[in-house]
Every structure is written in structure tokens, then in C-alpha cells.
């Protein structure tokens, strides 16, 4: 009896070993998430305090990432900026993926005219290039954190919707969902217990991808001077304000750029190696 039961949990307990790239990506993402939460606490200086007479200094023991164009400590500026780059993008991604998931799920489960209506509306939205939409919104409403979160959230909803809808439509046609329906389960139960658990993997991967897109969009806007406004600064604005140091190859302009790259490439490496997770999630259903 016990021997017969034993092989069953074994494959589940055997964890897939994560490839090095996935692990590295996970560490990078976790690090920046921590910095977004606690960055200002561990930063050696205040973000706006001018601490050095020299501008664009190279890396020294006193200022590990050098100083910026006004002589402010770059390490502190980047740690403070993490809140804006990671935090704002995370909020916008939660909004985009959340509304995409809810709309996609409803469209798949109820179908009919609701599906038609939502699909057509979101198709129109995706007929505009993302940067163009953001520029038009910023031109009209000015630039502030709520405007940035909302517009990035809206821009990337259609993509999240399309993924969620196609996944849910596929699962909705599965036998176990039809059986649950025949059992007389409520729609809420079917969505919660049958459909959602079977799409977590791909939805998480899509969440990561959308996060990268939004980080790129928002830092691009900030770089144009149309994103986060001074005195606050995200990494895009840090590159912008220190661009004068480019000719000297100052760390003040390279480091924020590297921070963005490490974040986005880290997320990419992480989701590329989510494959095992996705398969496992699909297999358990």
C-alpha cells in the first residue's frame, strides 16, 4: 500500500533544477524589487543633497558610482530612483495584466456580444503605437505618476487581454470544465477552481514581458523629459540629466542605463526559464 503510494509524490517533489540564467535573472529581479522597497533606507545620502564639489567624478570609495552633474551621489540617486522605475512600472503592469485577465476571462466565459465588444474596443486601442499613445496623453494631461501609471496600464491592456482570452477560451472547451458545468457548479467556481489555476504559468510569463515593455516605455518617456518630473527622478531621467557626462564616459550616465538593462534583461532571463514551471502548472490540471 505504502509502496504503491510512494512513486506518486516523488516526481512532484523532484524540483526541476533551474538553469543558471534563470537563477541569475531571479536574483537580479529580487534585488531590484528589494531596492524599490528599501532603497531610500539603505542609500548613503539623500537623493537631492549635493555632497561633492566635483561633478561627474569617477567611481571612488566615497562615492561608489561617482557623482552627477550637480555633484550629487549617484548611488543614492539610483537607489531612490528604483522606487519610480520599478514601482511605477509594477503598478502599471498590475493594472494592465489585471484588467486584461479579468476582461479576457469574462469574454471567454460569457462569449457572445461581450466578447465581440471588448475585442473590437481593444483592437482599436492597439492600432496606435504605444509611444505615440503615451505622448498624446502626456501632451493632453501633463506628466504625473497617476497619468503615467494609467496610460501605460491602458496601453498594454490589449496585449494582456489577447493572451488571457485565448488561454481561457482553450481551457473553457476542455472536458473537465464541461463536466464541472454539467455538475452544476457556478461560473465563479469554474473560473476560480478550473480555469485560473491552469493558466497561471503563461499569465505570469506574460506579466513579466509586459513589465519589461512598460519599463522601456516609461524610461523612454523620462529620457525625453516627459516622464517622471524633477526633482524626482527615475533611471530614464537620470540618464537624461547626466547625458552631458557622456563625452567623458562618466559613470553618472552609464550606471542608470546599466540599472535599466540589468532589470529588463533579468526579467527576460527569468521568464525564459519559467518553461518548467509552465509545464508543471499545465500538467497538474
Amino acid at each position: 500500500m505504502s509502496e504503491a503510494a510512494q512513486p506518486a509524490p516523488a516526481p512532484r517533489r523532484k524540483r526541476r533544477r533551474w538553469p543558471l540564467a534563470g537563477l541569475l535573472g531571479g536574483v537580479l529581479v529580487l534585488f531590484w524589487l528589494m531596492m524599490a522597497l528599501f532603497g531610500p533606507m539603505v542609500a548613503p545620502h539623500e537623493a537631492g543633497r549635493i555632497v561633492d564639489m566635483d561633478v561627474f567624478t569617477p567611481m571612488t570609495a566615497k562615492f561608489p558610482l561617482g557623482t552627477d552633474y550637480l555633484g550629487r551621489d549617484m548611488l543614492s540617486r539610483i537607489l531612490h530612483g528604483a522606487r519610480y522605475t520599478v514601482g511605477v512600472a509594477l503598478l502599471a503592469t498590475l493594472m494592465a495584466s489585471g484588467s486584461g485577465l479579468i476582461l479576457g476571462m469574462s469574454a471567454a466565459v460569457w462569449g457572445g456580444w461581450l466578447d465581440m465588444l471588448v475585442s473590437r474596443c481593444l483592437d482599436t486601442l492597439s492600432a496606435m503605437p504605444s509611444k505615440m499613445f503615451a505622448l498624446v496623453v502626456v501632451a493632453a494631461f501633463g506628466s504625473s505618476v497617476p497619468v503615467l501609471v494609467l496610460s501605460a496600464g491602458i496601453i498594454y491592456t490589449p496585449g494582456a487581454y489577447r493572451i488571457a482570452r485565448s488561454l481561457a477560451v482553450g481551457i473553457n472547451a476542455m472536458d473537465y470544465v464541461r463536466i464541472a458545468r454539467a455538475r452544476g457548479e457556478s461560473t465563479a467556481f469554474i473560473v476560480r477552481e478550473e480555469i485560473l489555476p491552469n493558466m497561471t504559468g503563461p499569465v505570469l510569463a506574460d506579466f513579466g514581458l509586459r513589465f519589461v515593455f512598460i519599463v522601456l516605455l516609461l524610461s523612454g518617456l523620462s529620457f525625453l523629459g516627459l516622464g517622471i518630473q524633477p526633482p524626482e527622478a527615475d533611471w530614464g531621467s537620470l540618464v537624461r540629466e547626466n547625458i552631458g557626462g557622456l563625452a567623458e564616459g562618466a559613470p553618472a550616465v552609464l550606471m542608470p542605463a546599466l540599472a535599466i538593462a540589468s532589470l529588463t534583461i533579468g526579467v527576460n532571463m527569468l521568464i525564459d526559464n519559467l518553461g518548467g514551471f509552465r509545464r508543471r502548472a499545465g500538467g497538474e490540471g
Partner: protein
Amino acid sequence: MKDFALARLVAMRLGLGLVSLLLVSLAVFAITSLLPGDVAQELLGQAATPEAVAGLRASLGLDQPGWLRYLHWLGALFTGDAGKSLVNGQPVVALIGSRLPNSLMLAAATALVSVPLALCIGITAAMWRGSFYDRLVSTLTVSVVSVPEFLVATAAVLVFAVHLRWLSALSSVSSIDGIVSFLRVFAMPVLSLCCVIVAQMVRMTRAALIDQLRAPYVEMAILKGAGPVRVIWSHALPNALGPIANAIALSLSYLLGGVIIVETIFNYPGIAKLMVDGVSTRDMPLVQACAMIFCAAYLFLVLAADLCAILSNPRLRHR
């Protein structure tokens, strides 16, 4: 009969594109004009008398209902009148007209360089897939695709203008007096744009070709003893032409995003720089017109991509 069905499919796609453009114009207009903020008040400042504001509102047509203003705006746009800039009072069409050729030149030069380059890299990577070369290409393209465009452009400036001193970091089109100065002005923006576009295009080309290489007929050709070059050139590539053309058109639509950053960073006098300046000064007629040009270009490229897919895929043709 078949040709008729195909023509209908193409016509439907064209119609859909037009409808999208119309809806986009509605969205652009709605976002930029139906705001609580008042253009007339903003133009005259806080000290203006209510009568002056009302007068300006009437002369700008702001006292009319929104849908009527939209129709007026759309009609004027069709006849080539995009209104006057709120900042310097010049006709928007003249402002755009002086900048558009520069942007088109930049886009054309980029396409001319990046398409052949991307095809070569993409096809060779698919041919030797799994090799060190392929993995190198994949890693590089993923890295370029997942960092912001301004990062690529800054890195290009750092390498080619600061360290190697081959090129100048600023461009001014007026100072062109020969092929050398032409190259010096164009090289940096084109190079930065190419990095972004080539990475996109290589990924898509490689994926399209590998998709074909997985098909049973390729296995058949290999079993019959065809070499790798023959399999690619005579079997896979002709079938992948449609998907690759689709990939090229889609990647070129990334030009629109890239060109905004690149024109700003190099201070290139193109239409994207014009629009970014318009956004910072909140010059609505200018922003509206530029946005419509960009959206129309984007929709055109997506449409071209779809048409390539329709015309090259017999399954889509007969559906």
C-alpha cells in the same frame, strides 16, 4: 472564383485598416481636445477677462459641441489644413512639411541598411541553429531588444563618437556639402536605429525560417540527400518568404518608436523631434497632426505585413 475571394479578403483588410485609422483619429482627438482644461484660458493667461476668453473660444470654435469640432478637424485634415501652431502661430502643415523629408530620409537610410543585414544574419542563424554563432546572435538580439532605445543610442555615441572619434554626435542637415559630411551626419542616427531594428528583424526572420525548417517537407528533402544550403535556398526560403516579408514590415514599425528617441538624442531636425517639442510645449494642433502621421504610418506597415501574409499563404487565401 479563387481570385475573387482573394480580392475580397484584401479589400476587407484594406477597409479594416481605414476604419482603424478613423477610430485612431477619434481617439487622438478625444484625448487632446475634450479636456477640462481650456485652451483659450491657457493662451490668454489667468489675467484675461471673461469676455476676451469667450471671444477667443468662439473664434477657435471651442464653443461648439465636441462631435462637430471633431468633424471640422477631420475635414480640415483631409484638405491638408491641420490648423496653426499654438506656440508660434505658423501653419502646422508648413512646420511638418519642412521636417518630414528629413525623417523620411532617416527611415529610408535605416531600412536600406538594416533589411539586407538582418536577412543575412537571420538566415545564417537559422541555417546553423544551435551553433555557437546562433546562440551568440540570439543573446545579442535579446539584449538589444530588452533595453531601451536610448541606451543603444547612447552606447553607439560612446563607442563611435567618443572613443573611436569616427563620427560626430550631433547632426545638422543644413551643413551637408558632400558625401563625406553626409555620411558623418547620418551615420550616428542611422547606426543607432539600425541596432534596434536589426535585432527585431533578425529574431523574427530566424523564427519564420525555423518554423519552415520544422515542416515535414524539409525532413523529406534532407532524407533525399539535399545539403543544408539546398534545403534552405530551394525548399525552406521560398516558403518562408511570406512570413519573412511580414516580419520585415512589422519590424519596420519599430522604427516609429525608435525614431522618436534617436531624433531627440541626436537633435536631428525630423518630425519626431518636432512632436516631442510639441508635447513639452503642449502645442495641441501640432501634436494631433504628428500623431496622425505616425499612426497612419504604423497602420500602413501593419497592413503591409498582413497583406504579405495573406498573399503568400495559400491556406489564408482559400479560407
